[in-house]
Structure formats: structure tokens, C-alpha cells
């Protein structure tokens, strides 16, 4: 039943046997112990589980671990480099872009993708860019400000 997958996660190649039906998010959380990626729903609506798969933001509850075989994945745990926070992490901290923190990893990873595609988004573009991620705490306002601040830091 099981098949072996090799996935480069946060720069390190990992190889494990998995059930074909195992979701990528469960592989990250339960096999690799990377619990920073949260599961907020079961219909790919909330975006809490967003990670970067081969350079693009995906909802990791919608991808099978087997489909990610041979791919490269970045999770929230891989964002800070050499102990230095990523500008988006700094932006979320400085602008109070989180309260309970549960949607935050997915929200930040969605923003990573957004700023890659559009380094200087307008307010409207940011709001549109995070439509696939739900936050129940903040009303999104400070998340928008956090992404703007990160865009400025990244120049």
C-alpha cells in the first residue's frame, strides 16, 4: 500500500514511506513534526495550511504527499534565515497582524507568494491577494498593513 516519497522541505531532502492518500499537510505535521502549518478546515477554504510548493502558494490540505514527490516545499519554519526574521514576519509583529496566531503561518506564506508576484501591491491588491485565507480575529486591517510594511522593507 505504502509508497516512498522524497520531498525537499525547508532545504532538506526528506524520504519516507507514506499511504497514497496521505495529505501533504499531514505529512508535514505528523511525519516530519512541522506543526507550524495548521489545519483550519476540510474544504480548502480557510488557507491556514498554506505552504510554498515549488515556488507557489498551495493549500497543503489539497495536495497529496505523493503528488509532492520530488518537489520542494517551504513552510513557516523555513522562512527565517540564520535566526533573522523574514520581513513578513517582522511586519506581522510590528503591525499587530495577528491575535490568536492560528491563521498566521498560512497568511504569511500566502503573502510570500503575493509579494513574489507583485512586490509593491496596492491595498486593494493585498486584500484580493489574501482572499483565500480567513482570519477570524483581526478584521484583516493589520494584516494588510503588515504586508505593506514587509513590501517596503523588501524594497
Amino acid at each position, binding site marked *: 500500500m505504502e509508497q516512498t516519497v522524497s520531498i525537499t522541505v525547508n532545504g532538506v531532502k526528506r524520504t519516507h514511506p507514506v499511504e497514497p492518500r496521505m495529505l501533504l499537510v499531514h505529512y508535514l505535521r505528523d511525519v516530519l513534526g512541522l506543526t*507550524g502549518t495548521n489545519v483550519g478546515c476540510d*474544504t480548502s477554504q*480557510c488557507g491556514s495550511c498554506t505552504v510554498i510548493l515549488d515556488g507557489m502558494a498551495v493549500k497543503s490540505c489539497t495536495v497529496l504527499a505523493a503528488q509532492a514527490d520530488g518537489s520542494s516545499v517551504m513552510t*513557516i519554519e523555513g522562512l527565517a534565515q540564520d535566526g533573522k526574521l523574514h520581513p513578513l514576519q517582522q511586519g506581522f509583529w510590528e503591525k499587530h497582524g495577528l491575535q*490568536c496566531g492560528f491563521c498566521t503561518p498560512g497568511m504569511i506564506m500566502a503573502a510570500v507568494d503575493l509579494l513574489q508576484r507583485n512586490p509593491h501591491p496596492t491595498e486593494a491588491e493585498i486584500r484580493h491577494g489574501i482572499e483565500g485565507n480567513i482570519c477570524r480575529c483581526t478584521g*484583516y486591517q493589520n494584516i494588510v498593513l503588515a504586508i505593506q510594511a514587509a513590501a517596503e522593507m523588501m524594497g
Partner: protein
Amino acid sequence: MAKYVGASIKRVEDPRFIQGKGNYVANINLPNMAHVAIKRSPYGHARIKKINTKKATALPGVIAVFTGQDLIDGGVGKLPCGWNVPDIKVPTRWPLTVDKVRHVGDGVAVVVAETPYSAYDALDLIEVDYEPLPAVIDARKTTEKGAPLVHDDVPDNVSYTWAIGDKEAMEKAFAEAEHVVTLDLVNQRLIPNAMEPRAAVAQWSAATEEMTLWTTSQNPQPIRLLLSAFTLGIPENKLRVISPDVGGGFGSKIFHYPEEIIVPWVSRKINRPVKWVATRTESYMTDSHGRDHVTKSRMALKKDGTITGIHVQTWANQGAYLSTFAPLIPTALYLTLLSGLYKVKGIWGEMWGTLTNTVPVDAYRGAGRPEATYVVERLVDLAARDLGMDPADIRHKNFIPKEEFPYQTPVAFMYDSGDYDALFHKAMTMADYSALRRKQAEARKQGRLVGIGIVGSIESSGPAPSKVAGALGSAVGFWESGVIRVHPSGKVTALTGSHAHGQSHETTFAQVIADELGISMDDVEIVHGDTGRVPFGMGTYGSRSAAVGGSALVNAAKRVRQKAMKIAAHQLEAAEEDMVYDQESGKIYVHGSPGKAKSFGEVALAAYTAHNLPEGMEPGLEESAWYDPANFTFPNTCHIVQVEVDRDTGEVTIQRYVAVDDMGKVINPMIVEGQVVGGVAQGVGQALWEHGIYDENGQLLTGTLMEYAMPRAEAFPMIETARNETPSPHNPLGVKGAGEMGTITGTVAVANAVMDALAPLGVRHIDMPLTPEKIWRAMHKS
């Protein structure tokens, strides 16, 4: 002079969350852990004829399957109701039901397996033979003759009734009224949707007979008490309940849920750690829902706009069982707020708490107060329209004047402080209200549907004097505990009985304590949410943490300061009354001799070495306080909203949102502003999109995020906030609640704005949510 309080300090808790290091219950993995999944009813109402678990039990990877009867035989108790108004009928609720299922999602069996995947596989193999029964879902229709009985021992499906006010004065007001406004409305059912689904992990130690339960709770101490005394039977001193990082609650994680009983019961039964994590679909059909009122209301006025009477009758849907605090919400948190910001004598409110084949309804952000505000502020707006007055003017005319505080309403509350004229003046200046009205008139000439909502609201936050709560039906007190433990090195661990799940206690409480003791915030660590570390406490809801929990901590810190002063006085050979405690630096010295000072750290060490303490003083530097509030606090707001309705589609766009709030003294403006904005978004969600819908068979039609419309980022403009501070006179911090005002006010502010936009078409009222379809239909009917 404060150095931290009043400053927008960045949050202490953020570094772990922004790096994916949050410690949510679902992240806890223990060696040899088994996984639980729960078989739930697909019917709204059905008799259970037979449950066959054989095939499920035989599936490889399955450890055991248990039914509700197995749990009862194994000693579990019924879930109690924690708020018992007179003559209430509390229906029986077992952790897993045994006779009938009474709502979609009602649990009937539990599977425990080696992996979550095999536990879910096994669910499909459990065969339940149901006899479907007619269902009832409407709060009022459930009381009609011939409606199916949800519980055989609750006749007419009415669990309780409650009333408050001055009925005679109300009747007189309506008899003498020059104008009467009537409004029948539905305050629709909402589904809370904290982003973290509920979860529980339990670990039984057979050696010590101790149980540890990690649960997504806003109040682990009361949960431990309920587990010990009612549902699980493990004594409190052998039961540790931990709520680590919790991903939002909004009320829905206050209550004692069946899984908090099932998971530890299974752990003890199989002698292994056990984990359960809800799917979002399970959250929809098992987390307590909010609101769901059917209401008839009327307001009596004089021709000049003076309000003389308010009469409200509400049928409050309680769902299939009474959730832990369900009867509190439509009684002491709802009917008691019918005075709003206004001086009205003739208020009478009455309600019926009814049972239906739906998920239990309990507190959801605002909890009773948004419903009350909605009734009052809708009536005031309709009155203004009928009498040809500006909605701002009619409100000004009826405000409780500033000099009449503390003000006794006819519906129990004594409002502590407020200045509603100043509040409205500030908001109207900020929004440039007269310019908004001018522009609206121009837009209307062009045929555009622009509307303005201006509303005021009040909240009873920071529950509550325990004596008052007891008299109103509470089974518990509503004080809070706080401990300040100064270590020999001068570092501080502060324990609070309140709990944070987004509210930022680790930051704001550290600000308060650091200022009180004159030390660095970095030297203060806040501990909460673990019955093994903190004393009994009541947790977090009702915007109580700062007002009640913060007050306990500040009082404990004051006691630390007093003891430190005594030690310093002794060592400096001075009289205690001659000592100065410099709260800027934490230095203690004799008045006039700041050069010869003892530092906070020196005094702390001295307290523990105990080589040179005053005669009779006990060693150590740790103080606790139990704070029982003298009153609720009464934050109040004025929100002004401008919307435009699309003439072709009926879609609402929010163009401007101004929120001015009086939340008393503010500890951290950035955090408070975050609470206001987030609260507004939730309030707007009810006004425009959110609705938990059942069909007539009790089938939940909005069972996932695909059917239930949550607020998303594109729907909002930047919300403009400001404060109008009138400190609460009765707590040491002068604070009022900040967490719920946005939600309480946002809903009706937007609803009134939309109705104002539609006024030229003669549309008087549409029940929420104000979806494009409903608006379009109303436009074309008018």
C-alpha cells in the same frame, strides 16, 4: 508615572506564532498515542434503534469502539447547566446520546484507533439503525401545539422563561404614547468559527492515578471542576487541565463539551494517551452556535422624539440541549441591556428559552448584548424616520446625561460612567457627519442608494459581582485570581486565572505588573491556562480579563510592593511611612535620601535569605489576590458607517467606517485597536453575510466554509478608530471591556446604514444577513 501602560508595546507572544511555534492542542504528540473519532448523527431528530460496532471493531488498526451506553456504564455523568434561572427544566445530556439523536452532529459512538486515518475509516463501518422523527428548528414555532418534543420531559419545548423591568411603567408609556414603533425581527443564528477547531489530548497515569487533559478551552479551571464534580469523576487534585495556545474562541470555547469527557475516559480505559481533533465540519455541527432570536418589539415615544417605553418579547433558540451558560445569554446579558444609552423608565422585557433540533446555542462574541443593541438601535432608527428626525438628534435627545452617572436603569444595571454627548460629538466630528449627510442628499438626487448608519451602544462587560451572578442563577462566582511570585533574583512569574486565546495577556498584564513594581517588562512572565500551575480562576469571556483578571494581578503586585517597602524600611532603619517606592526604577529609599536606595532585586533576595527581616515577618516574596468586581463595567460606543447599495444587484459596499469607543483607560492602544477592528469585522459579518441555516428536517445546510459566508479581506475599507476615555471608577486600572464592543455595535451600525440607503424606496426592515438577493427582492417589492 507609567512607562508601559498606555504604550503600544509589540506583543510578547508573537515571536512564537510568526515562526510556526505555537503550542496548539492539535500539535501535541505523545509516545504511544491513540486517536479518537466520533460517529455523529446525520439526522436532526431520530430514535436510535440499534448500534452495531462489530465491523468497525474488526478493522485493522482499531483498538476499540464505545457507545454512549458503554460510557454510562463506565461511570460518566450528565453534562450540567451552569446557569439555572428559577423553574428551569434542564434536559438530560450525556457525552454520547443513547436514546435519541437530537441534532445533526449529536455523538453516538467513539472509535479509538492507532491513526486518525484508521479511526475515520472505522466510523464508516459503524451501523446505526435510526428511526427518523419529525424535527423542529424554529425558536418560536417549537412552542406551538403539535410541535415534536425534543425531550419528553420538557413540555412545549420551553426550558425556562424570564422577564425584567417595570411592566406597569411600560404599559402606561404605551397607553399615553404619541407615537409607537413596532418591529418584528429575527436575529439569525451564527456559527462562531474560531480558526482553530476544538481538540483534546488526554494522558492517564495508571501509576499515580492522575489525568492530564489538554483542551482548547477559554477556562480550564471551571472545566476541571465540571469534570470532577459532574462528568468524569476524577478528583480535582488528581486532574490537571491545560489550555495551551488556543486559536481563537469568541465564546465558543467557554463551554464544557462532550469530547472533554470522552477523550480522558478513553485514555483511562485503554491506558494510553489519546487525541481528538475536530474537523471543521464537526466544528459546524458541534461547537455551540450564537444568537438565533425571534423577537417582537415596540417603542413608545412623544412626538418630540422622547422615548417613554420599550417592550420586547423574545423566543431564544437554545438548541437541542442547554449548553453550559446558555440561559445566561438571553436573560441577564440581553434583557438587561434594553435601556441602551437612553433614559427610559418604561422598559419591560420577557423571553422564552426554547428547545429545538439544532446545535446548542450559547455565548458568541457579544452574547446577548448585540441582540439587545440590535433591537434598541433598530427601533430608535425607525422612530427617527417616522418622526422626521435625524438619527443622531433623536439619540442626543434621549441620552442619559453625563451628570446622572452612576445611573440606575429599570432593567437591573447601574451604569458606572460615560459621556455619551462627548462620545457622539467626537465620532460625528471625525466622520464629518453633516458633510456625509450633504453628500448623501446629492447622491440620492443622482439616484444612488447611499446610506448612513449612526448608532450608539453599551455593553455590560467584566462579569460580574459574584453575589449578583448568584442571585441571577449562576452556579459559579465571577471573581478572578492573581499571584505575583517574585523569585530570589527579582524576576517575576505572574499567574492569572484568566486565559488568552488572542487577547494578548502575556503583553498587557506584563505592562501592568512591570509598572506597578517599577521593573522591566522583560523580567515579568505571565502564566495562564494550566490548573497545575495557576490557582483556581474563572477564565476569559465577557471582556473580563483586564477589568477582573488584571485587577487581581495589580492588587497582588500592590501587596508585593507593601512587603518590599517593609523590608527596605527595616534594612535602612527607617519608619515605613517615610519610605518612597520609585515606580520608575523599582528603587526603595527613605524620603529625601534617594542615594541610599534598595533595589527591587536586593529586596527580593533579602526576602528569601531571611537573614535580616522585620521581627515576625515570614520569608519569601509572593502575594496573591482574589478580585471580585464591585460592578460590571459599561463600555460605550458611537459608530458611523456609510454604505452604498448597488441598484442593479443589491450588493452592499462599505465605504466608510468610523468607530469611537469608550473602553475606559487603555493599557495598550495597539492591542485595543486590534480588538475593535476585529470585533467590527465580526459584527459586519452578521449584518451582511453570516447565517447558520437548517432545513425543516433539522439538516444543517451551512455545514462547511463553502456554504457559510465568512468575512474576507476584500469586503472592508480601512476602519477608522478613536477613543473617548472615561475611566471605570470601580476597578484599580480604570479599564472597561474592549473585546466585544466592535461586534455589538458593528452589526446594527451596518444594518441601519443599509436600511437608510433603501429608505427612499420605502423599505423599512429586512432581516439579516443583508445579502444581495434579499435586498434585491425588497427593492423590487417596494
